[in-house]
């Protein structure tokens, strides 16, 4: 073997033709990497934390920020805390949150254990079904609940007139609203507890078995107690989500004058004259403070971001437990749960969308119609809502995905001085209630954009939605990043790539599947979101969710249900297509 190769090139000896102008080239690289780091940090911080500043300011100021003058005051807080209506709203909200948390966590835990750890006919189907409410927009299904179970609803009326059974529920009450919330939050709790369940070491259960415990006993004496941290985590999440909920009290509380914190704020903002914006800002600050405390608590329980890396680990090899003949009543019970919370409301939504009037006293076939859908297509508000939501979802989703990728790379793969704070900034929107986000951006645009150009355009709402979805997209994206060894980019660095080039040519390429998954999730979330728009909407920048909410309250049921069906179908098509594409990628 007589291979020849040049000796390593020496600058002083002239070297070979392949020696590059080292120093000049990467001096530029160092600078531009630094610029990207600082730019990312500044933009992220300004967009997440920045908008909260005007809210706090507005809450401490005598006049609205769009008026001249004014001075510092604590009066807004005094007004808020001495307002009996505020305390009623707080009581309602907390009562609702406690009921919802108890119900959703109990049901979610039970379902997680039954569907994942117990041999039961149909478990596989149930596991797929339960994902539906997590990924699909919640509002249309909620409309289905109302259509079926409200006092004048189809199921309620039918039971009332055809059976001797008493109607023990009333959706237009705090416990009734909690029922609806339990229906929509249980699947999420199933996911949270389920992921805690899958990180449990199944050998612990096996150890109980070989020591003589029966399968069911092992389940309840080892597995369920070990889940306590996961259940606690799920509980804090549910409680926090229940505090900021807007849709349910707007849909169900308005008619019986049950105010929640969120509706109290919305009412004082838009239905009072003059609007009590200082007071509302003070309420928003209080709500934000409570949510922040809850997020800190949750992180204490859940161990911060690191947990996401373990929850994506391999599925446990543990075998589901056989429960003998009990499996039949169990599967019927679980089936009943899905019938009541998913199938009947879905039918309710479809019937409302495809009929002129929905009541058990008229055969739906006699009043079947497509008019509702033609209304959706003809009415400019409906049409604009669909187009706007699609624009926000497609373009906003893409921009947010790029932003999340950049932020995650700077936060985890650079030596940037403030990289740790960047991670907290990105996760903080989880603690910011949607209506507070909306108010925050409203005030920010008032301050920096007095003419309202951005605020009245779709960009205003789009940015607010995008900021709100940062934490979700980040949580979906981070595990993929954590799974990539750092040697990959180190190898690029020592090969001569500056930080930016190493990220661009190596990591971003390898992360493309994760970016695609993030994009799909963000698309779905942005397409369904509406909370922040409550304070930002104006003719021209309507979004689907808010249009549904506003028009349902005014009594327009059919076209709103039709719009809900459109929203569900678009989401389902996007998710289905993504599944097909990614399925192919992971197979090839």
């Amino acid at each position, binding site marked *: 073997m007589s*291979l020849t*190769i*040049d*000796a*390593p*090139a*020496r*600058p*002083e000896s002239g*070297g*070979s*033709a*392949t*020696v*590059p102008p*080292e*120093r000049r*080239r*990467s001096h530029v*690289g*160092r600078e531009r990497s630094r610029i990207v780091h600082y730019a990312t940090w500044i933009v992220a911080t300004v967009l997440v934390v920045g908008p909260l500043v005007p809210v706090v300011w507005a809450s401490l100021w005598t006049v609205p920020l769009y008026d001249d003058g004014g001075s510092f005051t604590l009066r807004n807080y005094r007004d808020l805390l001495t307002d009996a209506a505020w305390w009623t709203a707080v009581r309602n909200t907390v009562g609702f949150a406690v009921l919802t948390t108890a119900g959703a966590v109990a049901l979610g835990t039970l379902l997680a254990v039954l569907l994942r750890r117990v041999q039961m006919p149909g478990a596989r189907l149930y596991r797929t079904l339960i994902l539906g409410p997590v990924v699909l927009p919640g509002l249309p299904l909620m409309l289905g609940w109302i259509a079926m179970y409200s006092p004048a609803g189809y199921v309620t009326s039918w039971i009332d007139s055809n059976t001797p059974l008493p109607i023990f529920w009333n959706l237009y009450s705090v416990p009734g609203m909690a029922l609806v919330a339990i229906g929509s939050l249980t699947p999420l709790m199933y996911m949270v507890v389920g992921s805690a369940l899958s990180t449990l070491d199944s050998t612990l259960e096996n150890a109980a078995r070989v020591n003589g415990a029966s399968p069911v006993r092992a389940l309840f004496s080892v597995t369920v107690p070990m889940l306590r941290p996961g259940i606690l985590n799920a509980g804090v999440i549910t409680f926090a989500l229940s505090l900021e909920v807007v849709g349910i009290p707007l849909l169900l509380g308005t008619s019986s004058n049950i105010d929640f914190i969120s509706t109290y704020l919305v009412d004082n903002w838009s239905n009072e004259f003059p609007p009590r914006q200082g007071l509302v800002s003070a309420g928003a600050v209080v709500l934000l403070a409570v949510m922040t405390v809850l997020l800190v608590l949750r992180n204490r329980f859940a161990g911060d971001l690191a947990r996401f890396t373990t929850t994506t680990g391999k599925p446990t090899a543990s075998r589901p437990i056989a429960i003998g003949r009990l499996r039949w009543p169990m599967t019927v019970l679980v089936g009943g749960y899905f019938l009541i919370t998913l199938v009947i409301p879905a039918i309710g939504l479809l019937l409302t969308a495809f009929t002129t009037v929905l009541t058990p006293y008229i055969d739906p076939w006699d009043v079947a119609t497509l008019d509702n859908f033609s209304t959706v297509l003809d009415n400019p508000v409906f049409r604009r809502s669909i187009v706007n939501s699609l624009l926000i979802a497609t373009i906003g989703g893409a921009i947010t995905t790029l932003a999340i990728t950049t932020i995650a790379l700077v936060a985890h793969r650079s*030596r940037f001085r403030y990289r740790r704070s960047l991670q907290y900034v990105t996760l903080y929107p989880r603690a910011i209630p949607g209506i507070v986000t909306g108010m925050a951006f409203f005030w920010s645009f008032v301050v920096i954009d007095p003419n309202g150009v951005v605020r009245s355009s779709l960009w205003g709402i789009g940015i607010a939605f995008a900021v709100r979805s940062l934490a979700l997209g980040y949580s979906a994206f981070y595990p993929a990043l954590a799974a990539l*060894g750092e*040697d*990959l980019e*180190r*190898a*690029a*660095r*020592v*090969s*001569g*790539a*500056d*930080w930016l*080039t*190493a990220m661009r*040519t*190596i990591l971003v*390429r*390898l992360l493309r599947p994760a970016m695609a998954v993030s994009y799909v999730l963000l698309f779905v979330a942005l397409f369904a979101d509406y909370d922040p728009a409550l304070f930002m909407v104006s003719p021209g920048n309507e979004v689907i969710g808010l249009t549904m909410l506003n028009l349902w309250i005014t009594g327009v049921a059919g076209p709103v249900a039709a719009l809900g069906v459109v929203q569900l179908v678009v989401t389902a098509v996007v998710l289905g297509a993504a599944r097909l594409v990614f399925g192919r990628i992971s197979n090839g």
Partner: protein
Amino acid sequence: MAELSITSLGKSFGDVRALDDVSIVAEEGKLLTLLGPSGCGKSTTLWSVAGLHTPDTGAISIGDRVVYDAASGTEVPPEERQCGVVFQSYAIWPHMSVADNVGYPLKLRKVAKQQRRERVEEVLALVELDDLGGRYPHELSGGQQQRVALARALAYQPRLLLLDEPFSNLDAKLRERARDWLRDLQQRVGITTVFVTHDQDEALSMSDRVVVMNAGRVAQIGTPEEVYRDPADGFVADFVGSINLVPGEIVGHDGADIDFVVDGTREAIRVRVDGDVRLGPGRLGIRPETISIVGDIDQPGTVRGTALERRFLGDHYRQTIGIGDARVAVQTHLASIPDHPVLRLPDICKVFPASEPTAESSTNPNSLETT
């Protein structure tokens, strides 16, 4: 000329001194090995050279260029240091073909396409992967991936080649072949190389010079022969190769000849030692292959022991002989020995202080019990 010089490098993680006053010079075209147990600071040193790790104190220069100097605040980023690095994990980029992996450093240096292709072919031929340029990493064996990593590191003719335990993912047979192959290649290319390993066989067989590190410090720098034959302290003696460290006391001396009483015995053995002699407790360092079993007790440097244990190791037997409280390993070709054999110690022994760290606390499988 020194191609790499590391001066007084220091690094702390909290209270732990990961690097403590580490100074190393690597000569041009030579292969220098950093050898030590895991956690001794060898990889930290290597990564500091590559610029992937920032030390707290000290200085590093490559050729005539200072790449790190804590005093002046100089820190050249990794992409400007011209170090080819082979990572323990290989870090082959899975989304690029073999040729793209190897060509990446050249592309960054804006080498023209034609020239780039020629150079990639040249380097792939050098690592004997001539026909595999179009393959993707997952289609390669572990040994091939390692050679791709090496080709990539050499592609742009770096000033230094840094290897971080490159053989640890290969099986034993392959590792031995890769070792000879790499040494041969390094000598042909003539590139200054720094090699990190915890495997003493690797270090001894491949290196021009070996730096033995322990607990963040340099324990000894020397040729493989020096490090093996004349270890600076008990740690080096124990970590590099096998050695008996027999505890006892020096009760008298006459020039280089000492009278050594092994703990648990009463009679002194007279041996000649290398280095300073101080009366009092100490440990006598004797390599198992330098002890012979003889018939006659009356010669100087002999001692009678008790045969305790015999192990067959293929090309030799390892006999464990009790002398007082000590268990002494002896390498011999004799299948059977008397119950109370007479051991003849080597002409020159080494004495180490009674208490100092040995490699036993770390992870040297070759370390012998000498209690």
